[in-house]
């Protein structure tokens, strides 16, 4: 009835750790993505400035070559040649102006086009064809001197306007470049800082989370075992024992029907034995139940074991308890008792020790059990492999592992053996307080 709520009973620390973990992962990645976005915006602006510069430079080159070709035509003093030569020039120039305008219009939205570009382009579009017409007319009338003068006076200002445009846009592009370099290195610095910081804290939180989950799993397993024992005891009591009582009555009835004689005598004896067996079974069931609740001081139990063993042995046994004695979780207590009993019987049977010592330490944060002797030590190959049936080492290790204890077995030839078992207090001393809000739930189903 309680177990359903217990599975959900995650400690607040665990919840916070889990939330932090999610937060760190999302936050860290978010910052990195934002940094990449910033870098992208900067790159776009740099790209736009460069495109603008290229377009204006192309225009300038075209204008210069246009001027050069017109000069060449004017110098030929041939009106017909001039008229024929200007037509393709006019077309080429118009095409170039159109391309430049298109390039400026297609700049990315973040890029601010230089405000002087469009007026300049318009001026060129309007002024140059008019100039060309005037020059061709002058050439046709044979006034070559005026043609030369006009070429010098009217075209040069347009070129100088374009040149200054190139200059200002170039400056803008250089500015963007400088800023891009600066921003990129700042993005790089930020990422170099964020990535390891996020990774380290994420790792730490994940490690804590893993540890907590592992601990919780042990706790849940222990609770399950207690519940299982209780259920088992109840089942045995309610079904098997009752059935036995019923069957005993039927046997008794049969016995009453039998005539006096050997058969009846035998049956009576058998029934007596069965009575004993049932009584034993009943007390075993009660033990099973009470072992989940009864306080049974570990040190007393181990003292009894040690004293019993030392009666038939030369070794001297002693037991020390440190710290205030605390209740152990019943399952843990049983397991610790079995581990210690196994270790003690090893020491008495195999170690040929003079002293065998048990130390129990009820620490605030951890419970510790040490059993040491000054005997001949465990042979190294046994210590490593622990052959089944020898020294019960695999059993000790298995039990320690099941309750989540750290187990160290230290042994050297002729200098003794020490078994050191350490168990987190939260596991050893029973369950941690559960969050309050599950109590409501439990009240309903309990």
């Amino acid at each position: 009835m309680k177990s359903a709520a217990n599975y959900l009973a995650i400690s607040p620390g665990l919840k916070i750790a889990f939330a932090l973990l999610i937060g760190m992962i999302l936050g860290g990645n978010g910052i990195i993505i934002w940094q990449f976005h910033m870098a992208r915006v900067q790159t776009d602006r740099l790209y736009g400035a460069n495109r603008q510069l290229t377009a204006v430079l192309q225009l300038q080159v075209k204008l210069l070559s246009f001027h050069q070709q017109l000069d060449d035509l004017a110098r030929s003093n041939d009106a017909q040649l001039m008229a024929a030569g200007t037509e393709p020039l006019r077309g080429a120039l118009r095409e170039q102006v159109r391309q430049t305008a298109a390039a400026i219009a297609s700049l990315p939205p973040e890029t601010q086009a230089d405000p002087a570009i469009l007026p300049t382009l318009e001026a060129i579009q309007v002024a140059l064809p008019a100039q060309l017409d005037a020059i061709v007319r002058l050439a046709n009338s044979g006034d070559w001197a005026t043609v030369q003068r006009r070429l010098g006076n009217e075209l040069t200002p347009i070129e100088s306007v374009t040149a200054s445009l190139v200059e200002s846009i170039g400056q803008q592009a250089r500015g963007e470049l400088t800023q891009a370099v600066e921003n990129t290195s700042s993005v790089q610095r930020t990422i170099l800082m964020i990535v390891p910081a996020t990774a380290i804290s994420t790792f730490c939180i994940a490690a804590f989370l893993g540890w907590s989950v592992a601990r919780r799993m042990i706790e849940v397993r222990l609770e399950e075992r207690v519940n299982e024992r209780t259920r088992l005891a109840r089942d045995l009591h309610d079904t098997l024992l009752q059935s036995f009582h019923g069957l005993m009555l039927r046997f008794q009835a049969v016995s009453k029907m039998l005539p006096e004689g050997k058969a009846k005598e035998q049956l009576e004896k058998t029934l007596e034995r069965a009575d004993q067996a049932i009584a034993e079974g009943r007390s075993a069931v009660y033990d099973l139940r009470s072992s989940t609740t009864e306080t049974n001081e570990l040190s007393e139990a181990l003292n009894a074991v040690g004293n019993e063993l030392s009666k038939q042995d030369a070794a001297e046994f002693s037991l020390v308890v440190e710290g205030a004695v605390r209740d152990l979780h019943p399952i843990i207590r049983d397991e610790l008792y079995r581990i210690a009993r196994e270790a003690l019987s090893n020491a008495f049977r195999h170690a040929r020790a003079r002293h065998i010592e048990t130390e129990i330490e009820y620490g605030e944060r951890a419970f510790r059990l040490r059993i040491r002797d000054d005997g001949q030590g465990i042979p190294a190959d046994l210590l490593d492999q622990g052959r089944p049936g020898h020294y019960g080492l695999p059993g000790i290790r298995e039990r320690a592992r099941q309750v989540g204890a750290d187990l160290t077995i230290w042994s050297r030839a002729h200098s003794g053996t020490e078994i050191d078992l350490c168990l987190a207090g939260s596991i050893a001393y029973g369950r941690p307080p559960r969050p309050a809000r599950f109590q409501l739930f439990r009240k309903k189903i309990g």
Partner: protein
Amino acid sequence: MIRVLAVDDHPLLREGIAALISTEEDMELIGEASNGREALDLFRKCHPDVTLMDLQMPEMNGIDAIGAIRSEFPDARIIVLTTQPGDVQVFRALKAGARAYLSKVMLRKELLDTIRAVHAGQKRLSGEAAAEIAEHAADDALTPREIDVLRLVAVGNANKEIGALLSLTEVTVKSHVKNILAKLGANDRTHAVTIALKRGIIDL
């Protein structure tokens, strides 16, 4: 002829009782019930001379059934059967009006004699039960509230949880627990649970 009614929720146990009674000339089993409610109905119908009553049963337990039957039929002769000895259990059964108390372990040897004795108007208490009662006769009994608290202690609740479940403050629960320990002579709460289980104050 002694007419017997058997009340127990375990069919095999009822069969056993039936088998044993059928060997006797002077008694017969006139009915079987598997819980307290059925027992009351059957009692009204058959008016048995002697009723054998288990205590731990579903729906209506033995103590309640004894009370209900005795309130309608004050001279009903009821023998309590149980697996779980304990002075409190015995005491409650006797107080409810049972004439005899039999541990199921002793059933085989003592059932028939006890039926005859109770039918003859005697009261019977097995030696084990009498000793239990004598031992704790002078003790203070636990109050119903204290028993509630103890039941929750037994399934492993902490004071705070017990408080929430019984709508008591933690301080009140603490003082209840203190009284329980004193009354039972227990060293700590888990010891108290063991004692309470043994004495039948709470069920397994």
